[in-house]
Structures are given as C-alpha cells and as structure tokens.
C-alpha cells in the first residue's frame, strides 16, 4: 500500500560534511515575498471593508505585486544562472526541464505563481468591466491570483526544505535553526493564506455551525500534519500555527490604528479607521495536539495515525473554538485586542445579530453531532493526505 524502499544514504565524506551549505539568497527572497503578499492581502481586505474604492496601484496591491515580482525575479534569475552559468554541483542539485533549464522545485513553483499572478491582472480587469467591480474574495480571476500567491508561498517553503533536507542528509546541522525559522514563517503564512481564502466560512457568526468544523477539517489537518511531519523541528505544526496566530493578531492590532474613510456609497456604517480583518482561529491548540501525536506515534500505521490526528483535531478545536465564538460575541471581545467591533462600512451596524447568533447560524443537537462526525471523517482523509504530503516534503532535495 504505502511501501517505500529506504535507500542507503550516500557516503558522506569529511570534506563534503565540512562544505557548509548556506541557505541561498533566493530562498530568503521567496520567504520575504510570502510575507509581503500576506501583508498586502490582509491589508487589501481591510481596505475593501473600510475604504472600498481602490485602484490597480493601491498600497496593498503594491505589497502583493512586490511579493510576486520578488519571488518571480529571484527564482527566474536563479534558474537562468544555474542553467547557463551554473557549475556541476549547482546543476546536480537542480531539476533539468525542457531540455536546457535547471531549476529547483521551489523556484519552479515561484515562477509559476508569479506568472499566474501576472495572468490574473488583465483577466481581473476584464472581469470588473464585465461583471462589475470587486465585491467578493472568491471570483475566477481572484482565484487565479490566489493560486499564484499560494504557489509562491508553497515554493518558498519547498525551497527552504530542500536545502535543509540536503544538509540533514550530510548531517550538517549548522543551518538547521535558520532553516527552521524560515520554514516556520513560510508554513505559517501558508496557513494565513488558506484561512483567508476560506474566510467566508470562518467568520465569527459561523463558529457554531457544523460547516465551520467541516471546512476546517478539510483544510487544516492537511497543513498541520504535513508541517508536523516535514519541519526541521519537531514542533512543525505548533510553530506554523503560532506564526499564523501572531500575524493575524498583529494585523488586528495595527490596522485600526490608521485612519480610513469609506469612499463608496452607500455607507451604512460610517467609520473613521481601518476595520480589522479577523482575529485568528485558535488553531494553535489542535496544532500542539497534532505535534504531540506525531512525536508519539513513530512507526505506527499511517491510517491509524490519521485517525488520531483527525479525532484530536476536531475534539480540541471544537472544545476551544465553539465557546470562543460565544466569547467573541460578548462585550469582552469588543476591544482593540480582539477587534470584533470591526464592521464593513456597507453593512447595517444596527443589525440585530451583529453580536449574537441567529437561529439559522447555529447547528444544534443531533445535527451538530452528525456534522462533527462528518468533519472527523473529512479530517481523517485530510490527515492521511497530509502525512503523505509531509513525507514527500521531507524528501525533497532539489
């Protein structure tokens, strides 16, 4: 079923061991681009809920483009350099494609992402002219853009891993710490991205719905298990969730400090400052559980492991997030820290369910139980894929 042949590790000579493998510049560049894209994206969402009107060259868009260009250019240069001016050791660490090019997998992902982002621009422009200006996160051209951004973030992660995996093989641990920090950042930002893409399911008003836990079970065990399995450290899931939590929270704290005024009518909620995007989900708790399970189930069957992961994820996540939903609706959350006063300028601020759950927003009783069981099933499959994906990432060397 899932058999692998373990190859004998290549003979490691003292000289190669000493040959210090530093993390290439382009790997740093891709990680920075991942951060830039994410800052731009969350800022852009806040921009749309606070100001509304934007142009092609709005500051958040520039942050996103900068990320795309940075990753694309650095990866492109890297590929051209290795292909045409590279030495044998460089080429031996790369993948040959289309007969003449040599590039790492991470660089290829970044280039694909940059081109996808580039493609989305004229497509999106046409889309606005045809179906109206932006009013939604998920539209076909935005999906092309998001796919591009996710791929760049993925490329950043893979680039760091390839370097680390090669070093590990040579038992060279000099760069492990740096590699781990870079991996924590790039994997954490990937969680931020997936959360943002799926944010229409993850609102404060959705936290008592079965669908909330089902969507979360599809998305997060996949990522957390894979990170736990492939990170240079044994706390891969926890550190990624920590980066996600910190970043999303910092955006909640910082953005509302700046003035913003709606420039589009109708304005039903006149505001004076940026409206925060969303307080992070409490993913850090199931992430700790996943790391602990991963540390304690070495050698166990992957399907059984997946079952553990899934149960643990749903149990821990539900236990913390469901009551946290109530907390976010309460007076205690209406402050700068949790930012639940943030409200889209075009929505009626006097809406009766602004700070409470309407009946239709909650799944109750048996339905909830069944919903959570379905979520566990989904989480099981997601964990299993995560394990396989993590194993693959753990073996990337080019």
């Amino acid at each position, binding site marked *: 079923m899932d058999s692998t042949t373990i190859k004998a590790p290549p003979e490691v000579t003292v000289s190669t061991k000493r040959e210090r493998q530093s993390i290439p510049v382009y790997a740093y560049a891709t990680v920075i681009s991942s951060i830039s894209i994410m800052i731009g994206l969350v800022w852009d969402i806040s921009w749309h809920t606070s100001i509304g009107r934007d142009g092609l060259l709005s500051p958040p868009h520039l942050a996103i483009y900068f990320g795309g260009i940075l990753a694309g250019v650095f990866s492109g240069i890297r590929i051209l350099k290795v292909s045409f001016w590279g030495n044998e050791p460089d080429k031996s*660490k790369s993948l040959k494609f289309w007969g003449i090019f040599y590039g790492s997998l991470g660089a290829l992902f970044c280039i694909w992402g940059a081109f996808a982002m580039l493609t989305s621009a004229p497509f999106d422009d046409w889309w606005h002219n045809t*179906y109206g200006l932006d009013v939604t996160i998920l539209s076909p051209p935005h999906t092309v853009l998001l796919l591009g951004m996710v791929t760049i973030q993925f490329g950043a992660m893979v680039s760091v891993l390839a370097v680390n995996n090669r070093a590990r093989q040579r038992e060279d641990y000099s760069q492990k710490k740096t590699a781990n920090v870079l991996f924590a950042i790039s994997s954490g930002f990937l969680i931020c991205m997936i959360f943002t893409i799926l944010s229409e399911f993850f609102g404060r008003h959705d936290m008592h719905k079965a669908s909330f836990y089902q969507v979360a079970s599809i998305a997060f065990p996949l990522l957390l298990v894979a990170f736990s399995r492939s990170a240079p450290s044994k706390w891969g899931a926890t550190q990624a969730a920590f980066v996600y939590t910190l970043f999303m929270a910092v955006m909640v704290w910082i953005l509302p400090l700046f003035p913003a005024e709606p420039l589009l009518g109708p304005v039903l909620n006149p505001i004076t400052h940026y409206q925060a995007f969303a307080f992070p989900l409490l993913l850090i708790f199931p992430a700790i559980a996943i790391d602990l399970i991963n540390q304690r189930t070495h050698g166990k069957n992957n399907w059984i492991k997946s079952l553990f992961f899934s149960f643990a994820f749903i149990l821990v996540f539900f236990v913390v997030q469901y009551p946290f939903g109530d907390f976010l609706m309460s007076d205690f959350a209406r402050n700068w820290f949790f930012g639940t006063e943030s409200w889209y300028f075009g929505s009626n601020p006097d809406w009766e369910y602004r700070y409470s759950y309407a009946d239709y927003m909650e799944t109750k009783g048996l339905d909830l139980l069944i919903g959570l069981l379905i979520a566990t099933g989904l989480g099981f499959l997601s964990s299993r894929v995560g394990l396989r994906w993590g194993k693959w990432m753990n073996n990337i060397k*080019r």
Partner: protein
Amino acid sequence: MKKSLLYISLFLILILLPSHIGSPGVTLEGAAGPYNLTVVVNSPDVIPGTASVDIYTTDRGIDSISVKPMYWYAGTKGTPKSDPALPVDGEPGHYKAEVWLMSSGTAGISVNVTGREGKGEILVPVMAVSTAKKEMEASLGWTLAGLGLFLVILMTTIISLSMKDSQRDPGEKPDKKTRRKRWIGALIGMVVLILLLWGGNNWWKSWAKNYSRYMYKPYTATTEIKSSNGIQKLVFNIDSTKLESLYLTRSLNYLVPDHGKIMHMFLLRENKLDVFAHLHPTRLDSSTFETIIPPLPPGNYYVFTDVSRLSGFSETIADTVTIGEASPQLVNSWNDSLLMDVDDTYYITDPYIEDAEKEILPGGDIVICGSPGERTRLPDGSWVTLELPEEKVFRSGQLYDLTIVVDDPDGNPAELEPYLGMMGHAVVFKSDGSVYIHLHPVGSYSTASQQTMLSRFQGESGMVDWDNLPDPVIFMDSVDNYITYLNKLSDEKREEILLADMDHDYDADDPEHEGHSSVSFPYTFPTSGNYRIYVQMKRKGKILNGAFDVVVEE
C-alpha cells in the same frame, strides 16, 4: 409578419436603458444655487462601476465643484464624502469627475458648487443598473489563452518532476523508475489541470448566468385595442411577474405622477413615423392602464410608456400594437373632447418615408415636418424653426442645446405657455427604432425621480424602512385621487402647481427672463443616423405639435 418584425426590431436593436432607450447619458440643465450648470452623467453599463460626470458652466467665480452618489434606499447618511470635479485643461467651464456606483437602484449624483456667490447643489437622478453583456476582445482572449497554456505546461512539468526527480539525491542520475514516474506525474498533472480548468469554466458560466439573471430587464407589456360604443380603447398590460431583483425599487405599486400623470404614453407609427400621439392612460389596477385613442390611421405602432416610482426609479416600458382601419362610424362620431385626459394630444405629419397615402385625421392636426434651420408652419398659423448648430451639421456624441424658436403668424416672437409643467416637450426617435427619448428643457432626466429623491433626502437621513412603506392599495388610491384632482383644475391652476413642482423659474414678468418664444433641449445624439424629433409646446391655450427630421453625422 410586420408585427413580429416590429418586435424583433424593438428587442434586438434597442440598447435598453431604464428611463429611455438608446441614449446612455443623462443630461441636466439647471441651477445649483446661484450657478447655472449643464451636467452630463454617463452611467456605467455594469454595476458596480464608475459613472463619468461632465459639468459645463459659463458662470465665473467658481472655486470648486464636487460630486457624490446618493442612494435612495440608503439616505443621506449613507453617502460617502464628495469627490472633486476637476477642470478640464483647455476647456474653460468644463469640469470632469468619476463617481462610483456600487449598488443597483436609484441613485442621485449630487453636484455641489462653491464660489464667489456662495454654495449651490443640484441632484441628477441616475438609474444604476447593469445593462451590458460583454464579450472578451479577441486580443485579450488570445493573450490569456497563451498565458494559460504556458501555466498548464509549466505546472504539468512541475508535477511530473515532483514525483520522483525532486527526491533524488544531488548528483543521482534518474533511473528507469524515475522516468516512468515522470510520465505518470505528467499524466496526473494533466488530468488535474483539465479538471481544474473544466471546473473553472463551469464556475465562470454560472457566474455569467447569475449576472444575466440580475441584469436590468425591461418590463414587457401587451397592448390591445378594443372598440365599443363608438369609442376605441387601448389597454396596456404590464407583466410584472418576471422581476428578479429591485422588487420594491421597481414595484408597480408605488408609481408616482410625473408632470401630473401616472403614465406618459407615446404612439408612433412604424416606418413612416408620421403619426404621433402623446396620451396619459388611466390606471385600472397596478399593472393595467387604459386610454381612449382617436381613430388613428391603420398600421403598426410603437408604444412607449414612461413611469416613475416612489423610489425615484423611472423607466420606459415598450411594446407594439397594430391599429386596424377605423370604421366610418367611429371616424364620424369622433370628437377630441372624447380623449380621456385633458393633456392628451396627437397629430399626423409627413411620412418619414415618402408615401402617396394621404390620411385625414378627424380633429387631429396635420403638420409639415421641418428640417433644421428652416421655418415650418404650425397648424395655428405660427412658425417654428429648429436652429442649426454653428457647424451647420449635427454630430453624434456632442452635447447640443436643441433650440426651437416659435414665431406668431405675423413673424413676431410668440409667447409660449407651459405645457405639463414645462415650456416644451420633445421626443427624439431614431428611424431604425434604436433610440427613443422624452426630453425637457431641463434635460433628459426624469423630473419625478429628482423630486422623489429630493424629498426623501430632505425628509429623513437613514435607510429606507422597507417594512413600513405605505400600504400599496392606499398609496395607489391617494395617487389616483391626486391626479383626478389635478385634472379637474383649470389649465392655469394645474400648470401653476406642476411648475412649482418642477422648480422652474417661469415668470413672464421678469425682465431678465429671456422670454418664452424659444425652448431648448440639451441632448447628445448617441449615434449617427436619421432622427425624427417631435416637439410639443403650448400657445394661446392650444397644444402645438411640430416635427423635424435631423440627419446626424459621425
């Protein structure tokens, strides 16, 4: 056959816009406090989108002009801050701005002027609805297809290399298994990408379908002619069952009078464009309207009706009708006093296409169709001229003040009187049926829309209380009662009330007033071609009708 052709011409050629057909811009000529302005708003054809606003003025001492969109349903509180209208280089007195219209519905573009004389504001009503269904240009299509293909090939390569190659140790050569996995990877990649593209394509299609569903669709109507007891009635029935959005905004339950009438109906004989009637049907129920029509010459007729609502949403509902040969009995017993509404009028003029057929309308006027720059005789002996622009030729896309000058039978400037609260009315019709618009000296916007929006913004500032709108039956009753009351008044009294509603500065004794021997209608011909302009004025208590054929060049 003719009927179906007429329908096809109506529904295929017409670029349908809510308040008129085929003329995308809204023009307003009016005073923002002490400043006289002409404002042209070109609404976006896709909502959300941006409207372009052009403001023209000859007044001096203006410091700044700003514009903002105000939505009927959101109220003044829901209005964002204004945007500046910036002076256009090299065109003194021309200012330009862009306004974002984010929601469908009735919006007003508020133009605010600040200057030496103080501040002034004027509101241009705009119907914000999506009317366009766009296709992708070939060049963009090919560019995107090229980029898409590149992305597919690159991703297939990536997936293919991901399988095994990426896991090779540095320097390790690919073996047979690696090569096989490459192909498997490429295949998997291809399948996944094709599925993704297929899913994306379906998503796009559903998006387009949804957009089409909520696009503005004009109401359809059926028109019937019924003869009985020596009179001929036209029954206009609007199909209000297919509304997909803007249920309250476009509800027929909340019609309000425009120029004192619940509905303005124009009948134009197809092809020849020689018979014109401006009628004001009475409401039987929320969607059925009825009027008595004179024994018009037989033929296929375009029926255009203009209505406005409490929400300020005004639109044209179009249909066609075939009017048969009237029986001699009907013709003989006809008398203009049989018309249902005091302001109903009709006439016959030269056919647009020369025809030997001569028709005599009992009672109705016969007028000679004029050409711009030439004097044409009106039935009461007075003369009317449509002034030619300086260039001597009309061009499409250019803003004109279509000026009608009326002289009395002795050749002296005539003294015109208000008709339906305005010094004149004009209907512009393009010979191919693609343009229909009802104009006033103040522009092409609906004055009823402007009135309802102004009263709404003055009265309350918050959102419309949807749940507490007046009961439709009571609302309709009170509107009908008001119209009946107006119709019972003397012409003078009625016009006085209507003029007050229109906020028009009519004062015959005012020495600064330029007199009322001429009327001008600000208008931009949207396309080149042959147009017929029907004009209506009133002199000595009699409605005067005229017609002009205008050739508009590119």
